[in-house]
């Protein structure tokens, strides 16, 4: 996750010489007891969750004895904030605080540079005092200016004897933020203890998703900006994204509370960030609840679109599938059409599908999708750039409401042809295998398959298809073989199958 918990952020500060309270994150009540006993005296227990107003929500409790700490830990570990279950609690010594400050480094998009927010009244309620907060410009290469910090402190009521320690701590916070490439690094409050030490009493850090690859030391499992710990499917999707960088694939599950009172739960498959947002607004306006956000764009391979569709369909309780991008895509749309057609056929799709495939080669894309899905129990409709998102949303509503079947995505199951895994011809490609039922092929079909696979297959001299190039050359040719698979299917001769099992869905583990 690209957000760090309080205790993780504090560890980064401690490594750079900034004082933080003694304490430890725990996952069981007994650990809370033991940590409290070791710390001695009064302790504070804080849920580790990305929520604001943690204290007001009951996520912060104080304990005078180890037994009390254990009881509190039990309470806190059972808490859940929205879709965020608490799994860790930080147990720390209580501090003897003399002064509190608010310190936060974030990114100023207008200045194209970091900005340090500093307020010497500090502590809670900072949102209400936005006007009194000092905003200091920070240099990308040189960090925060010492004199700027001193000037803010000089104008405050904090006694001058503490300023030196605070300047050091504030500069170190800014340096830490830069070194770990934080998008936001907040210490609220930074406190001055009774003995004059500057100490980071809380810490919230968001790391730039795109820089996570440079920071293995942060132990970030999934570089995604989410407001909850990654779900199993989000982990699986992240694994797919990481294994194949051709085009973007982004998948996030959304809160679905109250979906029973709407027209239904829709699986959403967007293309392009802006187009996806605009299309989501169109489905939401129709009165559906979206189960997820998903974006496959930037010229994704057919395999990536296929896997995205499979992941979307692995969600519980879907009553339909809606796809739409910007509507006027620069990318040719037929690879996506092939990928979607493959997923719907494998799952013997039974839920209404509306896909807006507008853009380059849209006629071909719509024809592929609709024709390849014509035998399925589901209505599958493809649309073009001149069909508005609102119109497509209306078609989706109509198809869902016309349907008498009450099955959902829970009732879908994947099927693969009988010749897969048997003695049929097979060769590996990245992430799977291509299987060909050569016994069922003839000269005429083989010639077509050579064409559909962009020449990667050829006639072996006996009317059967065989690879025209070395196996290494076809490793990334999933789009070509998926095209061939769907074209064979369209003429009623399903002799080729690209088996692309998804780790965590079709096979055990291995995801992310």
């Amino acid at each position, binding site marked *: 996750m690209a957000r760090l918990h309080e205790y993780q952020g504090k560890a980064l500060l401690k490594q750079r010489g900034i004082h933080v309270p003694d304490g430890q994150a725990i996952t069981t009540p007994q650990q809370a007891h033991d940590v409290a006993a070791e710390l001695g005296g009064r302790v504070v227990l804080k849920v580790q969750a990305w929520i604001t107003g943690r204290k007001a929500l009951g996520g912060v409790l104080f304990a005078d004895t180890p037994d009390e700490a254990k009881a509190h830990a039990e309470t806190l570990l059972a808490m859940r904030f929205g879709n965020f279950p608490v799994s860790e609690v930080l147990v720390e010594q209580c501090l003897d605080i003399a002064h509190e400050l608010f310190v936060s480094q974030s990114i100023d998009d207008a200045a*194209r540079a970091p900005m340090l927010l500093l307020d010497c009244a500090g502590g809670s309620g900072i949102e209400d005092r936005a006007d009194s907060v000092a905003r200091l410009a920070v240099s990308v*290469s040189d960090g925060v200016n010492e004199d700027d910090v001193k000037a803010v402190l000089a104008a405050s009521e904090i006694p001058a004897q503490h300023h030196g320690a605070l300047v050091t701590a504030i500069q170190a916070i800014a340096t830490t933020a830069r070194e770990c490439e934080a998008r936001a690094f907040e210490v609220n409050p930074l406190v001055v203890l009774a003995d004059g030490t500057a100490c980071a009493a809380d810490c919230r850090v968001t790391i730039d998703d795109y*820089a996570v690859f440079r920071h293995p030391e942060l132990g970030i499992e999934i570089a995604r900006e989410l407001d909850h710990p990654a779900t199993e499917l989000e982990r699986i999707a992240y694994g797919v994204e990481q294994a194949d960088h051709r085009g973007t694939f*982004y998948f996030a599950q959304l809160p679905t509370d109250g979906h029973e009172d709407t027209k239904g739960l829709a699986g959403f498959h967007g293309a392009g960030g802006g187009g996806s947002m605009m299309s989501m607004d169109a489905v939401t306006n129709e009165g559906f609840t979206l189960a997820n956000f998903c974006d496959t764009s930037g010229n994704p391979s057919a395999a990536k679109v296929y896997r995205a569709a499979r992941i979307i369909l692995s969600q519980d309780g879907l009553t339909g599938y809606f796809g739409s991008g910007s509507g*006027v895509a*620069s990318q040719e749309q037929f690879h996506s059409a092939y990928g979607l057609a493959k997923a719907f056929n494998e799952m013997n799709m039974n839920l209404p599908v509306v896909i807006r495939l507008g853009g380059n080669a849209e006629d071909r894309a719509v024809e592929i999708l609709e024709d390849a899905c014509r035998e399925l129990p589901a209505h599958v409709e493809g649309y073009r750039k001149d069909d508005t998102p609102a119109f497509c949303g209306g078609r989706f509503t109509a198809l869902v409401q016309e349907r008498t079947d009450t099955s959902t995505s829970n009732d879908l199951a994947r099927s693969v042809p009988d010749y897969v895994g048997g003695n049929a011809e097979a060769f590996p490609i990245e992430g799977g295998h291509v299987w060909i039922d050569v016994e069922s092929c003839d000269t005429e079909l083989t010639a077509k398959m050579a064409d559909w696979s962009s020449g990667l297959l050829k006639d072996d001299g006996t009317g059967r298809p065989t690879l025209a190039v070395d196996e290494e050359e076809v490793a990334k040719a999933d789009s070509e073989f998926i095209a061939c698979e769907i074209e064979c299917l369209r003429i009623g001769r399903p002799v080729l199958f690209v088996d692309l099992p998804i780790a965590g869905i079709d096979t055990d583990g291995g995801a992310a």
Partner: protein
Amino acid sequence: MAILIDETKKVMIQGITGREGRARTKLMREFGTNVVGGCTPGKGGQDVEGIHVHDTVAEVVEANGGVDVSVVFVPARLVKSAAIEAIEAGVKLIMLVPDRVPLWDAMGIAEVAADHGAEFIGPNTLGVISPGRAVPGMIGGRAESARQWFNEPIPGRTVGVISRSGGMSSSCGYYLSRAGLGISTICHVGGDSVLGLTFPEVALKFQDDPETDAIVLFGEIGGSMEERLADLMAAGRITKPVVAYIGGKAAREGTRFSHAGAIIEGDRGTHAGKVRALTQAGAVVVDGFGDLPEAALGVFENAARS
């Protein structure tokens, strides 16, 4: 006139020998862009789509007596060094196409660009297109599509388009053209948090462009560029009509939807805040994207009546 790009500007491509670089060079040339050269370290001497490849930006600049625009197609982690190389070689407008460029790299590029008086667009931009003139980047995908989709400027009925979304840049251009409007330039500023040119800077260029009669925006939640544009309108520095759609009404705080910049942080960057700021400044803000062309047409009809 158009802004940022026309058929006279000398364009080069960094990373010209890669998959994207090759494909987009073809589009740019077929559309009439004046592509003068390209570079990929270690690949000097090759030819791509009839374009001579050099090892460095400086060599391309020298061979062509200067370069106006460099379009960058290199892996995200190499974008910072590529951009700085171009800026230091004297190129004044850089287009950073790659997605997933680290934020601190983008800020580093901004610092160097400011020192050299250079501008950049992106990261994560499809670039810019001036219909009938040139397309540095990849809007339209194919030259033939780009010509079909986007009208050339029509005197008295021409809009400039600025978008945070790549796909929606084409979408806006296409639907506005179908509604009978001309397009001076479409600028995709990019979807990231820290960008080179943003709405205010591009809008000021449209304000100064005699060919552009009105400005159309595809905005999104997150960041402050819609609000900053509203400030310019309120201050009287943008006086041409502005028509806008803001995406992401359904989004909630804290989860980002693909675009790194499309995230609401606290009470900053909300849909409601942007709509309010623009409306108060006098922009026409539509609720549904499908209403955008009609609203843009409305601007011209109102002008004709008054």
